[in-house]
């Protein structure tokens, strides 16, 4: 009798536990569905961006907290890009994605760890596409905290160059060249900014140096994309020259690659570049997508829908 009561009690207890957990799952799901949605402009986590005030109060683990903010900043931009879905994202203008918390995240990470070069570098490369003045502010903060780092001068010079503020870019590169251990190219860049700030060769040099920075894969990725963009500009210029020669000889524009390819052969591209063909004998851009010949305008352009090369 006692045994059966105990068994019934055990079964009842198990039923209560299982039933309780099941109902919690249902209630939780229901709460989540009934939670009022946050306004779009406030859907970011503002409360998490004031971590800099914790400096001195986290038992010496400021570096770990800075890492957390760093990871959040990467995920934050990543989520914004994922949320953009199929929308074509312009890597030089990320403002439509509203990544307004990127600067606070990076600012906080560098408040907690003033020597966090990865955060400064990421800010110098990505923030100009959101708010160039904030990019300058963060990079200047980096220089102030790490005056011995010539890389930060290089990045600040790059930001000024992007903004076409060539005098400031030149002065920054010159200042960087005085840092102990700075490579000679900073001096060269300082001079190039004054004489040919907006030239394609200057851009190639800047992105080439950034692509060589193996300490930051994001920067390398961005710089390589930009180098592809410059290569595609050179290739498009070459194709335009061939189109012009074809038009002069035939009195009409070339309609296909088969017609144009013989005219491309004598064209010499700068910096050892060469035209590349796909399996269908079409000239492809650096990302492997064929260029499009516009016979109406007798011009060539990237395949905007498919190419991975930045379109501007």
């Amino acid at each position, binding site marked *: 009798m006692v045994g059966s009561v105990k068994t019934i009690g055990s079964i009842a207890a198990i039923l209560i536990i299982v039933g309780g957990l099941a109902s919690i799952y249902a209630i939780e799901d229901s709460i989540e569905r009934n939670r009022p949605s946050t306004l779009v402009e406030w859907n970011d986590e503002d409360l998490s961006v004031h971590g800099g005030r914790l400096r001195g109060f*986290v*038992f010496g683990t400021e570096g770990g907290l800075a*890492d957390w903010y760093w*990871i959040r900043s990467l995920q934050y931009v990543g989520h914004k890009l994922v949320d953009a879905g199929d929308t074509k994202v312009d890597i030089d203008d990320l403002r439509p994605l509203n990544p307004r918390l990127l600067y606070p995240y990076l600012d906080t990470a560098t408040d907690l*760890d003033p020597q966090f070069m990865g955060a400064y570098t990421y800010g110098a490369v990505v923030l100009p596409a959101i708010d160039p003045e904030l990019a300058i502010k963060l990079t200047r903060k980096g220089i102030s905290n790490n005056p011995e780092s010539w890389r930060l001068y290089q990045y600040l010079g790059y930001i000024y160059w992007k903004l076409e503020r060539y005098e400031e870019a030149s002065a920054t590169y010159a200042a960087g060249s005085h840092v102990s251990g700075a490579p000679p190219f900073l001096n060269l860049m300082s001079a190039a900014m004054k004489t040919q700030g907006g030239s394609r060769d200057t851009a190639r040099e800047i992105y080439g140096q950034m692509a060589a920075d193996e300490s930051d894969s994001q920067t390398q990725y961005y710089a390589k994309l930009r180098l592809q963009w410059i290569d595609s500009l050179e290739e498009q210029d070459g194709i335009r020259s061939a189109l012009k020669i074809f038009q002069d000889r035939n009195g009409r524009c070339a309609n296909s690659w088969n017609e144009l390819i013989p005219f491309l052969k004598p064209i010499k591209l700068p910096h050892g570049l060469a035209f590349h063909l796909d399996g269908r004998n079409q000239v492809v851009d650096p990302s492997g997508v064929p260029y499009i010949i516009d016979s109406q305008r007798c011009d060539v352009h990237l395949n905007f829908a498919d190419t991975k090369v930045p379109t501007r």
Partner: protein
Amino acid sequence: MRDLASFHPGILQEMESTFKGTSSVGRILTIARNTFREAVRDRILYNLVVFVLLITAAAILLGELTDGQEARTIVNLGLSAILIFGTFISIFVGVSLVSKEIERKTVYAILSKPVRRGEFIIGKYVGLCLTLAVNTAVMGIGVSLALLYVGGNSLALSIWSSVAMIFFELTITTAVAIVFSSFSTPALSALFTFLVFVIGHSTAALRELASGLNSTAARILFDGIYYVLPNLSNFSYITEAAHGHVPSAQLFVLSAVYAVIFDTVLITLAVLIFARRNFK
């Protein structure tokens, strides 16, 4: 957690025969050795398994999450974990070292042998410090191996001075725990020690904060706290270690001396209190 006697039914006799004719240092070392054995048998070092899992997971996953910053993140995560795990051991084992012996009345048996109360406290303290040293060293090796795995070879060596400074800090936390446990209950001792840990890490920042206030009383209060309580931020070198920085020899030696002085003061205080304690 079981007490010393429950592990070794014959340990008291063994200790008695060991204590006979030995010097004070010999008796302290015997108690320390048994405290270490007790900690090992209490599975305190099992926290190393959790730590190894944490570091292994970090080494594998952080490459994706941190965009090439995995070495510095492993240093930050690993050294912070060494500090936190070590602090928990210092607090929770430290406060039970003495109180457990009193609660289970094994202290009567030990103190009836030719052992002074001071030797008992110092032996207990040294034993726990030895446990923490082993724990910290094994964790440090784990962090170094993780760094070698992700290619942070230079950091694998340079973190060790920071690991040593964490150990210095843990010796102070342990001493604080023993002071509180010599006159208070384990729960309150743990709470007080944790508060000292929190305040000890914030004294410099609090003092800086108070200097900005227009209150003389606040300044005096925080200056008082700054000098009376151990300033544990003296041992914080984790963030710098993540950049491959090594503390200067002067800073390292000064930190070690600071720890030794505070340890001596605190253990003396604990011995004083314990010597006057009535076990009835």
